[in-house]
């Protein structure tokens, strides 16, 4: 019996970057997992939590826990959404024993995609091919909360035809920060421009990341500046043949 993986695609990927979710599913199936998509899923509640609306965040988080309560592995193409569940649900439910308990039981089953591949599936070579020079952006939540740093680089190293060139400001925030991007748009934009300047200095054709939110921020800034560098989620690179 193949092990079962439930996709937690995240609202952003669901609505704006579906190809990322599909690429993730393709890769997991090729590895032999039985992949399902619990249709009732929507969001992890992070937007409300980050905006200071904890009651509303709890409402959405409870829905998440109910949807995924029986899942074995829950895999997400996002560091920030994964970290929301694994690092912040406890704080949210510290006064609700039933959901606190559920959150504690479910959290260990939730994995960011690159970490799932390396730590659970224990593979680093997906047989992928991507010809070209890319650079890598370290998404903040993935980097600092989930300690995702060497992992994606190991995976990219096995991609045939791919050359990875590091940018100098790889670990600097791209400026997305959820509602920060639209509440403090001038500062957010300035941070994005610093990031894309760093990207351009590498001469890479594409920038790879583990979070679509960052890629949307960076891609939007690149496009606005008329710079023809692509943004690609690591799931898409690893599914590429």
């Amino acid at each position, binding site marked *: 019996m*193949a092990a079962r993986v439930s996709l937690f*695609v995240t609202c952003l990927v*669901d*609505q*704006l*970057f*579906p*190809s990322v*979710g*599909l690429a993730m*599913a393709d890769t997991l*199936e*090729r*590895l*032999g997992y039985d992949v399902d*998509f619990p*249709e*009732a*899923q*929507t969001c992890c*509640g992070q*937007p*409300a939590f*980050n*905006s*200071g*609306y904890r009651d*509303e*965040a709890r*409402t*959405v988080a409870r*829905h998440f826990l109910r949807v995924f309560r029986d899942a074995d592995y829950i895999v997400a193409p996002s560091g920030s959404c994964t970290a929301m569940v694994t690092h912040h649900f406890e704080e949210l439910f510290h006064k609700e024993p039933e959901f606190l308990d559920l959150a504690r039981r479910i959290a260990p089953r939730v994995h960011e995609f690159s970490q799932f591949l390396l730590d659970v599936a224990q593979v680093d070579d997906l047989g992928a091919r991507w010809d070209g020079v890319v650079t890598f952006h370290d998404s*903040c939540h993935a980097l*600092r*909360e989930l300690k995702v740093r060497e992992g994606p680089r190991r995976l990219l190293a096995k991609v045939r035809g791919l050359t990875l060139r590091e940018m100098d400001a790889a670990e*600097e*925030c791209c*400026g*997305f*920060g*959820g*509602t*920060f*991007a*639209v*509440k*403090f*748009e*001038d*500062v*957010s*934009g*300035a*941070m*994005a421009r*610093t990031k894309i300047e760093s990207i351009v200095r590498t001469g890479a054709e594409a920038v790879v990341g583990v979070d679509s939110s960052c890629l949307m921020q960076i*891609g*939007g800034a690149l*496009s*606005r500046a008329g710079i023809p560098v692509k943004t690609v989620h690591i799931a898409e690179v690893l599914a590429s043949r």
Partner: protein
Amino acid sequence: MSVVVPGKIHETLFDGKLQLAIYSSTGRLMDKRKTAVDSDVLPDYQELREQARLIKKHTLENLDWYLEQLESNVQAHGGKVVWCRDGGEVVDFLAGLAKEKQARLIVKSKSMTTEEIDLNERLEHHGMDAVETDLGEYIIQLAHERPYHIVAPALHKTRYDVADIFSRHLGIAGETVPENQTKIARGVLREKFLGADIGVSGANFLVADSGAIVLVENEGNARLTTTLPKIHVAVAGIEKLIPRAQDLAVFLKLLGRSATGQPLTVYTSMLSGPRRGSEIDGPDEFYVVLLDNGRSRLLADREKRESLYCIRCGACLNTCPVYRKIGGHSYPWVYSGPIGAIITPQYLGTTKDPWLPFASSLCGACAEVCPVKIDIPKLLLMLRSEVTRAKQREGQGRLEKLGFRLWAWMMQHPKLYEIAGMMASAVMPDAEDGWIRRVPAPMNQGPLRGWMSQRDLPPLPAKSFRQMWRTRKRQVPG
């Protein structure tokens, strides 16, 4: 900015020269710190951080005991302790002391605590001349400005700015070479040191078992301030306490490295009272002013108490991508950067600058470099929650609250969520070559307007993931 913020933010963002000054100075400090805490150079860095955190936690949890122990030991060594509830009491004490001793000239070494209480300005009103002697503080004092950074007060000033300031305030025109500017300051200030009646310093640490203050610096002005004048007054917040002199082995290893990448700053002074017995020099009188000014209130908040662990190294400022764009003067209080963002609302009230806890992308770089492991992002999130609740109590922010309630309700109903997604996809303009550059004027409102002002929008796909999943073919293993 979509949120109401100080105009200074916008002004700073569009000042190219200032942006360069901030970015390069903080960048250099960041690099120096990184080298100094590298695992080859300081293999037990993480262990030291944890130890520092535990010591601070313990000390604050038993603060009354340590305050009394400090007082007892200061007195045993011939010094005096002055307890001040707020800045007003500090000024009253100093004014009274100056009057009693007929002191006119006060020299000061760098102290953010004295900045916090506007000491210099208030002393001026009492007719006292208080001269800053740290080069950066001296420059901004002449310019009548607030410090730009906790450790580097004149970070925003170029050599040309300094030349201009010296020209206008010292009558020395046209000197733009930093080495010569420093010589000028040295000469002017040397006279002040030699003639000062009272030396006022801060304190990096208050050592309970020793009745001592510890001062770290690179220039020598703190040593001169605390050695030459006959009276030394050290002003420090009550949170500066550490239990034992031996704990300096932990804290001194972290402070210099975190602040400027130095294993030790040039001078570290441990001072415990007026000169004794056969000692030839040093002050005749020694006062430790213990300042509350709201610290006891922060202490009472268990969840945010760790804000008081701060040893004022400035590492969080150097690493913060937001500080590096908006600069020190965009913050409402003397403490800027991430530490400023968490303590300002606590000291001055959450509703005074409601935007402040939100001016962060929550990247977490600050928490990563904090030598005492303050979880700044966690505290920012708590403060955000407090701000929204305060707003609701005051009947403000109704629209946003309603928006999130609606959103939360929708997120419990997948079908509605799917329909909303389809509707958004239908009304968005098509993207010609990938990304959307412009949206129609009626749509260009609120968050969308905020987004579009800085970057393009990705094209909305014809079908969402969940729609595509329904007709997707499974992949075979291998």
